[in-house]
């Protein structure tokens, strides 16, 4: 029997998936089963940690949604009318926090809220003393929630704004001529088209807050705010090794994180159905609102951009003269040169590996497109790692590949493979729309004019692929640069990437050095995301990458 190349690709993609995702998860599941005692799963300490995880995630989500929804509606409304550079800038600003490494965000908030932080100093210089609630703010649940809110509001706003932009202005105009005021237009026209995007954003924020690691680790201050992520990490990397305890933490985290991911799947399928039913999938075009001319919308657009920028302000506070001085200090440069090289190497290997695997999955899924059952199964399984915490999957690596892998000896390969496993769905999501819109008629036209398959691909299809491929490489590289969890699991004294250096300096109270390196990491990762977002249709690549 002749093996068709399509099935061969599906087989290769499935093998990688088995190696990176299925086997580690199966090993983790077996380990869960071997614990034996049910009581271990209901250990009051771990249940308390699970409750704390839920509490911080719920608070962070509710506040992020309460602020992000109106902001997104506003920016979406302005953008669908004004549509110029200011609107594009707003979208870029909203997508930038995605590029802020969580370890940098944690450093920033400690430098703002900590005992010698900017806000404390401000109070002391204004009042002569610092109130107790400010002094106890850092290393508390409130600080973690605040950092999560600043991190996630732009994300909620970005998704809502994109959905708001797909509302055709002609429907709003028709509603107005039929007597509908702002409230009725919002209720009957805008909300039905925005609600599933909003629900999806809320669920994603909830899941990300449940799986938040570096922010909680640094800003939670250890016992005051311990979540399942930090508890899992503590059981395998601090003190006495307790793999069973870590597995129990992973079990509860999988349960808690599954809930929002089910909601995301529901919301996204509802949103897709709605788009299919109404044929409204993209930007709806420009149309000035009555009584408000374009100039007024531009002013509104500038205000929207300023508001979007507000959520980036904390991160800019680390760019001081002292930071630059510290960064260009010879000793600091010497200390970070190897970690920087290592981080760059990990980012390059991860981005290339993740994009190649993403591409492989896209082509395989394209081959399966006309077999709906296979196609759905393949897509769901390919997207599975998006719903997993890196630490949980890493624990699966740890348990599953224990024969070949000594985590305490450090492993560059494990860091890279774990990151590839987590980031290839990002590449898949960015590249899949290109596969869906393959210009088959143009390719046929090229063949009839004498072009070979290769020439036809190069001249007709590659121009459509190269932008998304570049976006995927950039976004994965940016995310990989600041990734903490995978490198925390498999580091050794020889293998310490940049995010770990920051984390260590923070724990050793070397705040100036930590801030300086955070500034460098922030510039690198947001720079990449910013460029990709600005040139990639106002953040749509970033939205696809994370949604």
């Amino acid at each position, binding site marked *: 029997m002749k093996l068709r190349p399509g099935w061969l690709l599906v087989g290769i993609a499935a093998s990688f998936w088995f190696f990176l995702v299925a086997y580690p998860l199966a090993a983790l599941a077996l380990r869960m089963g071997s614990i034996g005692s049910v009581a271990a799963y209901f250990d009051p300490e771990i249940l308390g940690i699970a409750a704390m995880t839920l509490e911080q995630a719920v608070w962070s989500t509710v506040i992020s949604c309460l602020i992000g929804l109106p902001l997104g509606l506003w920016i979406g409304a302005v953008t669908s009318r004004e549509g110029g550079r200011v609107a594009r800038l707003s979208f870029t600003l909203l997508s930038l926090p995605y590029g802020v490494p969580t370890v940098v965000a944690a450093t920033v908030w400690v430098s703002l809220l900590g005992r010698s932080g900017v806000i404390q100093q401000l109070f002391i210089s204004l009042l002569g003393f610092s109130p107790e609630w400010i002094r106890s703010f850092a290393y508390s649940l409130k600080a973690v929630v605040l950092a999560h809110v600043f991190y996630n509001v732009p994300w909620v706003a970005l998704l809502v704004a994109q959905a708001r932009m797909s509302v055709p202005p*002609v429907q709003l105009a028709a509603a107005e001529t039929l007597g509908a005021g702002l409230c009725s237009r919002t209720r009957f026209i805008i909300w039905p088209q925005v609600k599933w995007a909003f629900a999806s954003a809320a669920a994603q924020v909830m899941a990300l807050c449940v799986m938040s690691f570096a922010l909680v680790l640094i800003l939670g201050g250890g016992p005051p705010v311990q979540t399942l992520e930090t508890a899992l990490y503590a059981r395998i990397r601090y003190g006495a090794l307790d793999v069973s305890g870590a597995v129990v933490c992973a079990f509860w985290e999988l349960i808690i994180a599954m809930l929002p991911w089910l909601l995301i799947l529901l919301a996204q399928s509802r949103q897709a159905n709605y788009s299919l039913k109404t044929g409204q999938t993209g930007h709806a075009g420009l149309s000035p*609102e009555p009584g408000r001319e374009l100039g007024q919308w531009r002013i509104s657009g500038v205000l929207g951009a300023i508001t979007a920028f507000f959520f980036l302000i904390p991160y800019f506070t680390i760019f001081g003269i002292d930071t630059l001085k510290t960064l260009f200090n010879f000793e600091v440069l010497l200390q970070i040169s190897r970690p920087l090289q290592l981080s760059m190497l990990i980012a390059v290997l991860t981005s290339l590996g993740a994009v190649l695997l993403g591409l492989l999955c896209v082509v395989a899924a394209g081959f399966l497109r006309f077999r709906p059952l296979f196609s759905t199964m393949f897509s769901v399984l390919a997207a599975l790692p998006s719903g997993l915490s890196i630490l949980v999957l890493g624990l699966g690596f740890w348990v599953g590949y224990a024969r070949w892998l000594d985590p305490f000896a450090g492993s560059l390969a494990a860091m890279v493979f774990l990151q590839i496993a987590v980031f290839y769905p990002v590449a898949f999501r960015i590249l899949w729309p290109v596969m869906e819109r393959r210009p088959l008629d143009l390719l046929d036209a090229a063949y009839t004019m004498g072009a070979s398959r290769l020439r036809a691909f190069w001249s007709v299809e590659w121009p459509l692929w190269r932008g998304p491929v570049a976006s995927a490489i950039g976004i994965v590289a940016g995310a990989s640069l600041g990734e903490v969890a995978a490198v925390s699991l498999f580091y050794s004294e020889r293998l310490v990437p940049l995010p770990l250096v920051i984390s260590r300096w923070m724990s050793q109270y070397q705040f100036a050095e930590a801030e300086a390196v955070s500034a460098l990491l922030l510039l690198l990762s947001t720079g990449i995301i910013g460029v990709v977002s600005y040139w990639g249709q106002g953040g749509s690549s970033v939205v696809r990458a994370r949604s």
Partner: protein
Amino acid sequence: MRDHESFQRFPKSSLKVAALRKRIEDFTLDADFELAVGERAALVGRSGSGKTSLLRILAGLEAPDSGTVHLGNENITFLSPQRRGVGIIFQEQALFPALNVLENVTFGFRMRGTQGIGRDEYEAEAMLWLERVGMKKFARSAVGNLSGGERQRIAFIRALIWKPRLMLLDEPFSALDRELRTNLCNELVELHRLWPVPMLLVTHDELDVAAVATSRLHLCVAGDVHLIRRAS
């Protein structure tokens, strides 16, 4: 019968557009004309010549730079679209996807308040209008399930049923085939007879003009000014 009675009660308003000017990108739109009660005027012109902008100004969706728009004795130039009483049918129909057919048709009643008419009554009236165009059975259907012609019929009814004082149509037939177009033109004329307010049809098709219009406006270009006047 009720339609006829309510028309007798309703103030019959002619449309008067006087020295209306609006700068639109690289030209200035200049309109000056009147439409009588029951008149169906057509405005024919090429794309991008300002026809749709004129409709949007008349509907209150855009403000003019100068000039006035009167409906009867009332100056509506700066009245909000909600308070103008102008019905508009868009090329894309602009049906609301979250509402079913009946909810779309009765949307104007719900938004404007029902002036003493209960929900049952205006829904019954909507069913009557739907029956007239053979669409009663679709009353509870989602608008996304309708064909182009059916969607356009719903758009006609939605714009007329709440009895506007002026009807505007922005190339409502352009995406439809010839046979369907002819049928819809006839249905539109029939529906307009039930509520004979001034009507302005913007189109680029002379056959639509012949089927619907009783008079026409001319659009002529003089330098960078696009003049809209009643045809002599």
